[in-house]
């Protein structure tokens, strides 16, 4: 009997230990579990890290200065001298990509996150509250969707100046409406589900319901929308540069390089393909990382 008793005490002891460590360790554990189970998500996290490092250490890594024009080697294909070729001004594309990634990564991520946050909040509020709040938010969204975004960008530029912050503001204002509408549609059906009504019955305050019950269920859709809006933001930034908001020549961003490369698509396609491939890569990385996160965090998918 004694043999057994000791074994039981040891087991009981383990259980208590585990519960005390609790939340903090759990997140680390989730990440390790994701790493083990979802190699793709880990590779994506690595790719994103590489891009960030490339942006931060652009001056050290870029073989040439990003704006040095060398008209003799104009539009030369990727090769010995220039790893990714040169652009219409004879500038080294690899260097411009590294410097350009600073703006493009920021422009791709920050305004998208802002517009997602704003859109999700207003969408949930509209869907959950209903009535005049819903009408007000949705009509505001209609106006934002209808207003010509270029005009909106110019208004922001001429009132608040042309800094990068205003590029973020413009892109967030332009994008939140579509996120709001999709989150609202999901909230409408989620709010009727039993666990939400149960929460309401026991008097849980509305914001807590939204955050703890509705938001996690919108997570998969939000992650998908994030991966769709990042490339759109990077490409839209270039149309803002033409208006004088954001990156100005001779500097460059990926979006600007893609659009300027348009005229040379037939005889120098790498001008557009290289930045476009970079955008594609970063989007793939965000997408698989998002999938990985969702699988780990989403209770439904835990069992398989």
């Amino acid at each position, binding site marked *: 009997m004694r043999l057994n008793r000791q074994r039981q005490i040891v087991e009981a002891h383990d259980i208590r230990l585990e519960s005390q460590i609790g939340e903090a360790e759990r997140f680390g554990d989730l990440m390790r579990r994701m790493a083990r189970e979802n190699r793709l998500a880990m590779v994506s996290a690595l790719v994103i890290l590489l891009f960030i490092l490339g942006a931060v250490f652009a001056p050290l890594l870029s073989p040439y200065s990003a704006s040095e*024009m060398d*008209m003799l080697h104009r539009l030369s294909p990727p090769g010995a001298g220039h790893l990714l070729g040169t652009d*219409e001004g004879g500038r080294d594309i690899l260097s411009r990509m590294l410097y350009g990634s600073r703006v493009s990564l920021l422009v791709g991520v920050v305004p998208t996150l802002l517009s997602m946050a704003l859109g999700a909040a207003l969408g949930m509020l509209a869907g959950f509250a209903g009535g005049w709040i819903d009408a007000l938010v949705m009509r505001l969204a209609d106006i934002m969707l209808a207003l010509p975004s270029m005009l909106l960008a*110019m208004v922001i530029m001429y009132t608040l100046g042309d800094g990068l912050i205003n590029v973020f503001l413009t892109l967030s204002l332009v994008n939140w409406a579509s996120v709001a509408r999709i989150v609202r549609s999901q909230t409408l059906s989620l709010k009727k589900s039993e666990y939400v009504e149960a929460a309401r019955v026991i008097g849980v305050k509305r914001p807590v319901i939204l955050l703890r019950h509705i938001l996690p269920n919108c997570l998969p859709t939000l992650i998908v929308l994030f991966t769709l809006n990042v490339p759109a933001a990077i490409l839209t930034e270039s149309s803002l540069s033409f208006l*004088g908001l954001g990156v100005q020549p001779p500097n460059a961003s990926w979006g600007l390089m893609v659009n300027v490369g348009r*005229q*040379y698509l037939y005889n*120098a396609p790498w001008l557009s393909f290289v930045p476009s491939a970079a955008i594609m890569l970063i989007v793939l990385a965000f997408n698989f990382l998002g999938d990985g996160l969702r699988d780990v965090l989403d209770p439904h998918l835990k069992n398989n």
Partner: protein
Amino acid sequence: MAHRFANRSRRMARQAAFMLAALLFAAVLPCSAEAAEDGLLRAAILYDISTMDVAKTTDNYMIPMNVFDRLFETRMVDGTAQVVNSLCEDCSVSEDGLTYSFTLKDGVVFSNGSALTASDVQYSFERLLIAASENTDIPLEVVGGEALMNGEADALEGFNVKDDTHFSVTLNAPNAGFMAELSAPAMSIVDAETMAQVENFGSEPADTIGTGPYIVTEWVANDHYTLVANDRYWGEAPSVKKVIVRVIPDAGTQNLMFQNGELDIIDLQNLDSAIVESAYKPVYGDRIVSTPKVGLTYLTFNEKKDYLSDVNVRRAVGMAIDVDAIITGIYSGNAIREYGIIPTGIWAHNDALTGIEYDPEGAKALLREAGYAEGEISFELSMDSAADSNAQLVYQYISQFLDAVGIKANIKSYDHSAWINLRMSGEMDSFLARWGMDYNDPANIMFTFFGNERNTAQRSLNYPDAATMARVAAASAIVDDAGREAEYQALEQKIIGEDAAWFPLFEELHLYCLGERVAEFIPHWAGFSDFYAADVTLK
């Protein structure tokens, strides 16, 4: 029983797939570009014209040039642009250079049969001052023009009609370039009788009647317009019987359509010179027509702004820029270096004129002597984002050249309207632009930029020397050509040589490429994109 349901869905799926394949196959039947009927010329433009009424535009000249005539035309005659008679049979000028007596060609009719008379010419002058018109400066030179425009008079005093084919025009002040001005598209002759009956002259093809070699039969906004040979034309019937000009807003698409045989002529200025060098010159070498785009690409300095008000800074900027490198690097040699204001191809152009040469070290020394520290000077290079790709490259190349001598030229893009607005406000630091000549007379550029205090402010030059500007205004009135030429060249030396008020760069060449169906093409004397369809001969 369950299986029947499964079978049915499988059968339906098979039928759908079959239908889809058939549909796809039908769509895939090769459709080659439809063969062009003979006598048809197919051309393309990037942006649609905004009007056919010459009074309401200062750049859409294709329809005015082909559907209307003027008293005179400017034509390339053995290499130089000459003013030749058109509707005007003969013209004589009074001793004091103020009164011009004209004899109209007899028997000329408009395309709707209405006869051309001197009163039509008078109506064409007066119309530019009454209707909401943009081209008032030439008719304003005629006596009573101001009064008519302000409504104090109901006819142009200086214009008197003797009979159907004779009339005379009296100017406020002698202007040697007047006959050249009458060949400008703005001075197209319209029919007074027709104008009284139609309401949509300029927007409806049927109401837009002229005496020219073509009539306009169709204009679908943002899509295309069609010109057909005018069988009542007084002159020689043109080789091209029909012209379809399509609006193709993408240069890449125009390039594909031309190489696919869907266009008979393509304006290569819309394509980047690198593409012209690699895709056109080796393949179509002999079918490329090149002519100077008579005008001037220049870099301005706003003398109201700090740093740019100092002539040493302006000279140093000039010395820092290697214009020849720009011409070879960006324009692949398709441009002529310019040193003054009056561009090559315009009367009184001074070939012997020399200017600031590329000397970066000299520029640095000059700046040091003038007391500027390295990198102290900075100003804004305002770029119109609607400018073509070559121009945008020149901006960046200039910025790099200036950076090399320690001058910070920060490029800032503007959308088209904002750019024009800033320039006209007189507050734009510096910008690069091209002025295309309307008619073959130095005043068309000299007066526009340095004619008076308001003109130079409107171009953000703010040239301070009022005395010189007075001389420029007066130069138009010099009657004898030799004296007038000497005066213009002296003014050029003062404004550019001494004051370096702006930095002239070059005059672009305009390249066109002809399709197999075109035998010969004579471009517009000033290298406009618009051309006389009558100057095209098909095979």
